[in-house]
């Protein structure tokens, strides 16, 4: 189900590539600052 404006952002813990290393990103650790969460179709895609 689509989350909506006004909802709490669902928390997640996931692996990430970040400044030359593999790390884990926990969304809730960003509490206190703005987050722009951007989904994209995939690496090596046209747009």
């Amino acid at each position: 189900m689509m989350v909506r404006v006004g909802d709490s952002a669902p928390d997640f813990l996931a692996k990430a590539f970040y400044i030359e290393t593999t790390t884990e990103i926990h969304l809730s650790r960003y509490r206190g600052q703005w987050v722009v969460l951007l989904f994209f179709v995939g690496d090596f895609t046209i747009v």
Partner: protein
Amino acid sequence: MAAVAVKYPAFRELGAETLMVSVDPVSTHKEWHEKAMKGMIAGGARFPLISDQEGTIGRLYGVYDDEKRINLRSHFLIDPDGIIQAVEMLSAPVGRSVAEILRQLRAMKEYRATGKFIPCGWEPGKPTIPETDDSGAPTRVWESWKPGKAF
């Protein structure tokens, strides 16, 4: 992604972190970053590229396409309290506007800081609208607003 990377300093100046998510494994993010991103922008992306191979995060946000096994292009602005303040989703062939995402972020921050409403097409420096007028009555914006102000 390269466009986000170009504007990353602007996001940081606004106190925001950008997190980009796709179904690619971390190894592919690494390869993409090395082979493509660094060629487009010096240093590449200085923000996390999250791997969502099973579409778990995409499902949580309602953007995972089970048939294509991809996360649909979309963005969510999350405020410092963890509340979603903006949502956008686009079809795969059409890219987003990073300038518009920055505008939305600036607008959200302006409202949060001042409590004044943000009119259509607002850009930093343009007027915002108080909820009530000098007498305390609800602002009758339609009596003074001209649609040209939105552009």
